[in-house]
């Protein structure tokens, strides 16, 4: 029992330890140059001994002879490989719970539940996943709005990359419900919206001002420009609300407004489908309510069997983390396996991968599996970088190492798809935010090094029976007692030129 207690203590101590290492939140002069033995740009051939220059958080140059500014910090690692960060197109981790127990809740936003110190973000950073779209989970009908974040920062604002990344809708039957119920609830959500809007218009025409009074009661400033004006109903839904222009937008209930924005084509939609039949439902609902052009399907189960319908609808997809779909013939007992990304690759449907878990089997692993099963290496890499970036409408900001894009770079010890490669450094927005040699948790996991004062029994011995580097010797222990810093927080000698870290 005491073993378990001390282990819990270790984990907590480790997480706090890592946070203590996080550099300061403000950038220095914002200039950094990264030199790597190989630079994988994702827009053309790899560059040998390439240099990536970043200024003010954006990449200013990527080439074999890019010149660094004289006052830039230089990360010079000819032994490493530079790679744009992986992009996770859809995730519901990193929050306390992925769903609220209200089935139709377009007004909820993940920004209110993302936990910046969740291990998920830490592990994503370690794995080089630098752009993550956090959405609600799948136990809902309309779950709420998502947000694209970077896995670094102590507050949501620091993590923010893009707000309102899309509305989460679920076409698959949620737990405990039937498909028919789910379909009915999904359609009804839009019917309710329509009826609500019609009633608004009707009330206005009848001279009733309930909506206005309610909005004022809720404290909305109806004099603000965007709240004051009315606007006609837009979009390609197969239903319309004539007379909507008479309603000042501020009087539309906040709980329903995101759904209206979706229908008017102003908000992307991420629709979760757990089967081929739910794909059909999702496409029908999207078409009928005018948001098919903004829809991304998030697939699970045998949804891949509806690939033709998806191709026809022209929507991109995010694939389930389980890439190999297995079916068992009940008659013979034989199992047939289908490698799902291959189906979409052959039909030329744009697809993004999801990580299996944020650590050892992250996006790199999924892309590697694609290569193993016959996909082109470039296609596999794109499915975890440029395609998800495009899906998230951040194609101009992330997904490749190109001039003008965000200064996000991952430095790996080897090829990004090799199991032996590890992420050594991560730069986000031009700031060095991760240094593996200082990663206490990684040292524990990969090398069995337990940090000071956390191992039961005192001194840790390494394989040859000597005290471990990080284990305190008698002298160091007394130093700690005197209140001096423990060894790993000693500053670097060349610290004076380093920009302050985020």
């Amino acid at each position, binding site marked *: 029992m005491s*073993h*378990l207690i001390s*282990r819990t203590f270790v984990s907590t101590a480790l997480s706090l330890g890592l946070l203590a290492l996080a550099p300061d939140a403000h950038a220095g002069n914002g200039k950094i140059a990264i030199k790597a033995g190989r630079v994988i740009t994702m827009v053309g051939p790899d560059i040998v001994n390439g240099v990536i220059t970043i200024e003010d958080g954006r990449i200013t140059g990527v080439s074999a002879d890019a010149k660094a500014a004289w006052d830039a910090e230089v990360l010079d690692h000819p032994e490493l490989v530079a790679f744009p960060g992986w992009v996770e197109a859809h995730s519901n981790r990193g929050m306390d719970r992925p769903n609220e127990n209200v089935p139709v809740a377009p007004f909820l936003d993940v920004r209110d539940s993302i936990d910046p110190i969740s291990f998920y973000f830490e592990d994503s950073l370690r794995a080089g996943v630098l752009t993550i779209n956090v959405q609600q989970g799948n136990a809902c009908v309309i779950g709420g709005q998502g947000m694209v974040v970077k896995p670094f920062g102590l507050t949501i604002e620091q993590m923010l990359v893009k707000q309102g990344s899309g509305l989460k809708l679920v076409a698959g039957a949620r737990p405990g419900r039937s498909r028919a119920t789910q379909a009915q609830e999904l359609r009804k959500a839009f019917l309710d919206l329509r009826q609500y809007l019609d009633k608004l218009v009707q009330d206005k025409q009848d001279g009733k001002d309930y909506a206005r009074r309610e909005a004022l009661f809720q404290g909305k400033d109806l004099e603000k420009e965007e709240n004051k004006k009315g606007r006609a109903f837009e979009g390609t839904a197969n239903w319309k609300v004539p007379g909507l222009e008479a309603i000042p937008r501020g009087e539309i209930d906040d709980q329903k407004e995101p759904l209206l924005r979706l229908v008017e084509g102003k908000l992307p939609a991420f629709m979760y489908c757990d089967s081929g039949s739910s794909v059909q439902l999702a496409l029908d609902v999207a078409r009928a309510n005018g948001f098919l052009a903004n829809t991304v399907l998030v697939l699970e189960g045998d949804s891949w069997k509806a690939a033709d319908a998806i191709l026809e609808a022209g929507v991109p997809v995010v694939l389930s983390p389980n*890439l*190999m779909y297995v079916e*068992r013939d009940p008659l013979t*007992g*034989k*199992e*047939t*396996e*289908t*490698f799902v990304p*291959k*189906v979409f690759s*052959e039909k030329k449907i744009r697809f993004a991968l999801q990580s*299996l*878990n944020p*650590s*050892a*089997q992250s996006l790199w*692993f999924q892309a*590697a*599996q694609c*290569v*193993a*099963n*016959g*996909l082109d*290496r470039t296609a596999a890499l794109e499915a975890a970088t440029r395609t998800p970036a495009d899906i998230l409408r951040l194609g101009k900001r992330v997904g490749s190492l190109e001039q003008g894009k965000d200064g996000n770079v991952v430095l790996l010890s080897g090829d990004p*798809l*090799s*199991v*032996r490669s*590890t992420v050594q450094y991560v730069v986000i927005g031009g700031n060095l935010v991760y240094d593996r040699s200082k990663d206490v948790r990684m040292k*524990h*996991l*990969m*090398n*069995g090094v337990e940090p000071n004062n956390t191992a039961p029994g005192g001194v840790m*011995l390494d*394989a*040859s*029976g000597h005290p471990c580097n990080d284990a305190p010797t008698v002298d160091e222990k007394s130093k700690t007692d005197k209140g001096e810093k423990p060894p790993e927080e000693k500053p670097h000698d060349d610290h004076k030129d380093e920009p302050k870290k985020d």
Partner: protein
Amino acid sequence: MKLTWMLGGLACVASNAHALLRPAADDKDERKAWTVRATKIYTSTGRTIDKGVVIVNNGKISAVTPGSDEGDASTELRVYAVTAGLIDASARIGVSMDAVEQSREVAPEVRVASAVDLFSPAWERQVECGVTTVLVNPPDRDVIGGLGVVLKTAGDNAIAKRTLKPDAVLRGAMGSDPSQGNHPAFGRPTDFYSRRPTTRMGVEWEWRKAFFDTAQSKQDASKKFPGVERLEEVLAGKLTLSIQAWTTQDIRTAVFLKEEIEREGFGKPRLFIDAAAEAWKEPQLLARSKTPVVLPPFPVGGRTDDGAFMAWNVAQLLQEQGIVVALSAHGNSELDGRLAMQAGYAMRGGLSFDEALAAVTINPARLLGVEDRVGSLEVGKDADLVLWNGEPFEPTARVVGVIVDGVLRVDPRPKQ
């Protein structure tokens, strides 16, 4: 020449990508003679052949040589890489609770071979993962659960014909697994499971008692009990002892027990520790007793069964100490958990490719005493081969062909 080679390899890869080919077991192709040409032949003897050929005849390997890549495509198999069939020394497939005799805590005479279900789909899945030989043990619900058996993963469905080595190890466990289900006799109606042990010390007590009773029965025949002959064989070093011990304290208990047996002159048991997740904490202990180790699957967060923490460099640490390390996947056949992937994770943790290859081929073969038959690509050994479309153990490659005892079980050739 290289171009045609690569094209041939690409063709194999492309055509296999969509749907996995079914094993050729019940198809027409039951012949046991093959010519396998590969760009890389990893023999597990320390020798790698660049561009060579492995010839299989009558179910055995008859040649492993450098060679040309010309050949008759209709009768030959061409792939990027070949290794020996993988061996999982702790496979945990084909058995369930009816394979462990829980009426007693010490049941050395019970043979798990009586309960192995060769019809479980898990076998085919293991073949597709490239695992050709496994050690199957009774589930660890008893202190000493019985006799494990080494089986091939494909072949006849009669257990006798699939057995590579019967009664290969005597299996037991330290730690909390054997206490599962047991409870003290007070406070509730008694049943079968109201008995010792309910704690680690109780488990160790049962071990000591078993060996003590064995020693006693040598003097006094009236003290003989079912299975005592097996324990005598263990003491004599004729039957290998496999003890599951996840945590440091359990590993210590097992090793100290063995050392005490030797010191007191009761015998010289041969021991290997299974699921030694925390072996990284005291590698010198295992080194001084030269105890080989089978590692469990690498856990993503480090935390694994029985409260143990497994650091990913455990294999490397142990190798450096000269300890023989074998990896295992515990029956997992998923993309991220299968034995080939465990070898990949071991490389991530610091092993070289050759060391990782040994840990899933020749090392477990030696541990189980079947290295004369399997574990490497050498002339005379069983024709158990795994064919890959890339570098083995990297997730960018996968198993495209498997031959077990000379029979092609997974066909790398494009479907006609």
